[in-house]
């Protein structure tokens, strides 16, 4: 088994905790002294750096959210003088103002380490040839993987995305062994490979490191089949550095968080209360080594679960599940947490279209939970009973998945209203009162 930085990746829990405590205390002091925006938040919360003696006190610190990043744009959260910064990266900014994150040279070095760990986690070494097809530029994907690949000592192909036939040409000619890109682009490369009349035997890829967008286990199997590789997940956010905050090992069962740099927490997104290990909630990160953009208790809005179990790979870092959805999307129906993505998963599994709408209301003190689903021809029955039976069966499958049973209404194709081409998935009438 190989590691990039074995000593820390396989450290005992005591060693890791001691390192986190020391780094957290130092980081809180630095942020308090250098970041006026966060100092204000701490003062409002009545917390001083002296209150933070270690990770056990983390819960006392105020949260940072995407809204804070927008308020403080562009320099309000800088932890060092601008002259110390050597680079920026930025989110795509499809909603609201874009986020700009800053890096010192030290930040970049540590980020490279995190990505190098991910490449080794996927079975890579300095002998490998790493083809990076994430976009280069403001987006962190390209430069991040590129940095990790360099640092590890791989021959690095800085391809960026696009021109898929040329990508495959390079794979054949230069015998790339590791691919880094978004999962959807990996699937597209795989399909193109087969369209060109080639098979996985014509290329030398053995592993892929895929992230920057949500993907499913089904997609993993599809990509592994199309390209003849093992597909590994990688997680990160521009706000925290980029890819490499966590990464998958040979187990492919969740991502080890680089805990010497990022402390993860799971909170109840409604109350902010810290939840115990194993419970689903919103993922929060505190970066304890970042200099230029040191975010404390940053709410990612990703919902997932943390598990610290002995991993066969030997790493001791805690593992996070693939994000299950966004906390913004979470609904609480009859006291149960429900995500539209779960409803969608049941529909697909049961052979229904994913055109649906969730309607929540209240009768007396009880929530009502209705799901409208567009049926297709294969679900048409000639009897009313046939349709009602299908509705009941679907409601049963929903109950198994969600823990709460909806009333299903099968409706005609294209009858669910779309606004600007996008279907409105949730109508919560409780909020209208």
């Amino acid at each position, binding site marked *: 088994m190989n590691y990039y930085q074995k000593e820390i990746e396989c450290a005992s829990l005591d060693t890791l905790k001691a390192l986190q405590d020391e780094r957290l205390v130092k980081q809180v002091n630095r942020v308090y002294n250098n970041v006026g925006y966060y100092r204000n938040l701490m003062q409002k919360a009545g917390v001083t750096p002296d209150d933070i003696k270690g990770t056990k006190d983390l819960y006392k610190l105020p949260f940072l959210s995407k809204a804070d990043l927008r308020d403080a744009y562009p320099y309000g959260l800088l932890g060092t003088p601008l002259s110390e910064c050597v680079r920026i990266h930025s989110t795509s900014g499809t909603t609201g103002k874009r986020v700009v994150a800053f890096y010192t040279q030290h930040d970049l070095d540590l980020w490279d380490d995190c990505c190098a760990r991910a490449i080794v986690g996927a079975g890579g070494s300095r002998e490998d040839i790493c083809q990076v097809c994430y976009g280069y530029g403001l987006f962190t994907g390209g430069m991040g993987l590129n940095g990790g690949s360099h640092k590890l000592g791989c021959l690095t192909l800085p391809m960026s995305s696009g021109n898929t036939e040329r990508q495959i040409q390079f794979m054949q000619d230069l015998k790339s062994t590791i691919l880094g890109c978004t999962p959807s682009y990996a699937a597209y490369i795989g399909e193109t490979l087969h369209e060109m009349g080639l098979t996985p035997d014509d290329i030398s890829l053995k592993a892929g490191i895929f992230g920057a967008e949500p993907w499913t286990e089904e997609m993993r199997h599809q990509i592994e089949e199309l390209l003849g590789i093992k597909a590994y997940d990688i997680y990160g956010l521009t706000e925290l550095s980029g890819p490499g905050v966590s990464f998958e090992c040979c187990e492919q069962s969740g991502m080890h968080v680089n805990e010497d740099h990022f402390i993860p927490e799971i909170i109840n997104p409604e109350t902010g209360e810290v939840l115990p290990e194993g419970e689903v909630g919103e993922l929060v990160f505190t970066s304890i080594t970042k200099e230029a953009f040191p975010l404390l208790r940053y709410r990612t809005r990703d919902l997932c679960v943390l598990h610290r179990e002995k991993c066969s790979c030997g790493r001791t870092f805690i593992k996070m599940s693939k994000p299950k959805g966004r906390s913004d999307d979470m609904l609480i129906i009859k006291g149960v947490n429900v995500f539209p993505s779960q409803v969608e998963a049941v529909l697909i599994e049961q052979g229904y279209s994913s055109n649906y709408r969730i309607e929540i209301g209240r009768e007396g003190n009880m929530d009502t939970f209705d799901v409208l689903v567009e*049926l*297709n*021809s*294969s*679900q*048409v*029955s*000639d*009897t*009313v*009973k046939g*349709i009602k039976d299908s509705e009941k069966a679907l409601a049963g499958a929903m109950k198994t998945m969600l823990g709460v049973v909806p009333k299903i*209404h*099968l*409706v*005609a*194709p*294209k*009858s669910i209203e779309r606004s600007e081409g996008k279907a409105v998935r949730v109508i919560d009438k409780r909020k209208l009162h």
Partner: protein
Amino acid sequence: MSIKQISVFLENRAGSMAEATALLADAKINLRALSIADTAEFGILRIVTDRTEEALKVLEDGGFAAAVNHVLAVEIEDKPGSLAKILKVLFDAGVGVEYTYAFTSIKANTAYMIFRVDDRSKAENVLKEANINVAGQEIFR
């Protein structure tokens, strides 16, 4: 022996049935028989035509969810008690009738009842034994 019937899922709103039948009329497809089951939430339009596959395609292309199933077309003699006789035969054999509706074949100058039963082959056998004619798709030729 059975004939093909198309079931069309209808939204419960004014005009949805008219839209479905207009699509067929535009494609010059003749409806030989039609019935509708209605609930507060949706409707099921059942139609019989001599051009089942074409009709199905026209409806699906028009955005409707529709499916084909098989039903019995039972010849009705033009005399009192003939429908009662059919129902008795089916009832005595323990065959359940889900719904029924009528249509006439101009070519054969005969009236038929469509029966949707819970056990089609049993129904066919007992009707045959009682000398009651069950028609097939040929009545449209």
